[in-house]
């Protein structure tokens, strides 16, 4: 084997190893950044390997593509706000899937083109191509819809219509039919006149159908479930890459694809667990198609809530022994993490023990709150998981709910008919006092009303979290 091929192969092997080592380092915050750097190094190695491939004759075009992509990518990465992280991942995701799909397509056309020289590919060869096309296309269109939903370009509601599942099922069967037909009949078709044309048409039909399927699969899923969908699509994009690897029988593609596939599946799983929903239920449940959702009792109004001002809250907090802060998506929207930390510091100075209770699905991505608070340099030891805080809630003097809603909704615990029934929550209602900061009584992502706001020991501090917290800091300083 030519030394060149050997070098290429070794570069690929090395890059695969580096990817794994990089992911291993992601398991501790201290080493995580290095791990990410390592992973990108792995990517660099793989690219070098690819550039050495003898098939490459002209570089100008791929340079064009790389430059364009590089610029676009870095711009997007710099621009994106932390709150928009899920969409961003969604977009990148879709592009990755598309790329894999295109690779498969190109391979197929190359094969059809120089079918004269090449021998008919073995069954499984073309199977991998079809698989790559299918997964790639679904990942792309699905991710784009997910992006649209999170960005508000497409309705966040779960769009449902009659026979929806039936339609999807039919579409899917159609796709399978085309694949089988193509895989089995290709050899004969090639030898028949106009066969190639027919094949191309069929293949394009396949691609189109796959794109449509992606759209139809994601459209009926409610906005609240998007993060799950995105992480599922993430694992798909990995599988798409792996499929491309099968097509090119290129191990580095297979390995990294599998790694991504695995990580996506695990994360999806974790999210579903945290929401106490099955993946099937997330994907087919058309959860959150109703905006309001069943409200316990008659519709409540502002009149029923105990609406307080910053000074009252400041008083309560300043003289509390133990305060538990429950951050939610609202904190991210208000970008109030730094202020929040400042408030906590103030309270700390006054001898108040401040704990942060981090709900696994608070925010819009797993670990979303951790990222936010880390950004504000909140020391680790102050972050607690639900199970660590819930038990001695009754001894907590005040819970400070900052832009969280669903994750503190007692309905999840009490109302078996609730959309989020069974989802573990931070039981702030069991604390001595509970202060909820949000701008209105509007529901959260799950789109259901929250009993908590109307409880006797709950105080509502309305307004943007950032403003409210600023006020609180002032007030506390006064005392």
């Amino acid at each position, binding site marked *: 084997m030519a030394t060149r091929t050997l070098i290429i192969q070794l570069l690929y092997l090395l890059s695969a190893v580096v990817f794994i080592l990089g*992911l291993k380092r*992601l*398991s501790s*915050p*201290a080493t*995580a*950044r290095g791990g*990410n750097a390592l*992973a*990108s190094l792995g*990517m660099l190695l*793989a*690219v070098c*390997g*690819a*550039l050495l*491939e003898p*098939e*490459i004759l002209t*570089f100008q*075009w*791929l340079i064009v*593509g*790389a430059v364009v*992509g590089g610029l676009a*990518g*870095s711009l*997007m*990465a710099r621009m994106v706000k932390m709150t928009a*992280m899920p969409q*961003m*991942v969604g977009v990148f*995701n879709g*592009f*990755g899937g598309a*790329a*894999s799909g*295109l690779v498969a397509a190109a*391979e197929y*056309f190359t094969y059809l083109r120089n079918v004269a020289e090449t021998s008919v590919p073995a069954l*499984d060869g073309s199977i991998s191509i079809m698989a790559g096309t299918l997964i790639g296309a679904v990942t792309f269109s699905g991710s784009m819809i997910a992006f649209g939903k999170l960005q508000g370009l497409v309705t966040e509601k779960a769009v449902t219509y009659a026979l929806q599942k039936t339609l999807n099922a039919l579409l899917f069967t159609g796709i399978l039919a085309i694949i089988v037909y193509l895989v089995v009949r290709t050899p004969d078709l090639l030898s028949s006149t106009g066969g190639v044309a027919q094949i191309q048409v069929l293949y394009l039909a396949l691609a189109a159908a796959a794109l449509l399927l992606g759209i139809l699969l994601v459209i009926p899923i409610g906005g609240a479930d998007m993060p799950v969908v*995105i992480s599922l699509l993430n694992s798909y994009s*990995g599988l798409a890459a792996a499929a*491309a690897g099968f097509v*090119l*029988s*290129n*191990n*580095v*593609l297979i390995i990294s*694809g*599998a*790694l*991504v596939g695995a990580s996506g599946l695990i994360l999806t799983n974790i999210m579903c667990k945290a929401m106490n929903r099955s993946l099937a239920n997330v994907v087919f449940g058309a959860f959150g198609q109703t905006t309001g959702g069943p409200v316990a009792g008659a519709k409540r109004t502002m009149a029923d809530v105990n609406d307080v001002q910053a000074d009252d809250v400041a008083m309560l907090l300043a003289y509390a022994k133990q305060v538990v802060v429950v951050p939610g998506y609202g904190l991210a929207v208000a970008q109030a993490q730094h202020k929040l930390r400042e408030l906590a510091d103030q309270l700390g100075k006054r001898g108040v023990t401040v704990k942060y209770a981090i709900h696994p699905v608070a925010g819009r*991505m*797993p670990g979303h709150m*951790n*990222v936010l608070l880390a950004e504000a*340099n909140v020391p680790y030891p102050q972050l607690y*998981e639900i199970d660590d805080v819930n038990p001695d809630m009754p001894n907590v003097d005040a819970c400070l709910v900052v832009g969280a809603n669903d994750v503190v909704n007692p309905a999840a615990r009490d109302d078996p008919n609730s959309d989020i029934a069974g989802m573990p929550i931070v039981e702030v209602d069991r604390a001595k006092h509970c202060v909820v900061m949000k701008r209105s009584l509007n529901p959260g992502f799950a789109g259901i009303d929250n009993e908590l706001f109307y409880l006797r020991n709950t105080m509502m501090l309305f307004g943007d979290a950032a403003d409210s917290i600023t006020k609180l800091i002032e007030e506390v300083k006064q005392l």
Partner: protein
Amino acid sequence: MTGTILVSVYVFVLAMFVGFEVITKVPPTLHTPLMSGSNAISGISIVGALVIAGAGHGTLFVAIGVLAVAMATINVVGGFLVTDRMLQMFRREADSTE
């Protein structure tokens, strides 16, 4: 062909195991970075894309190739940068506690 496919299956299965073992060790704190980081890795299809774009099999293929390269690059570059942006915070955090 089948031979290579079979080997590919071995590689795939093993890599899946490695993935599961390694990923399950990642704490919730790092799940978002993990998500975007692994997402960046899925841009590996750039390897295939580059070859197609460079093979110069004619306009159609170059077009497909360039498109693929561009998209994959966005995924890779964007993904890693975003992840780094997130982890930077953690990093600072880590230092400040060290």
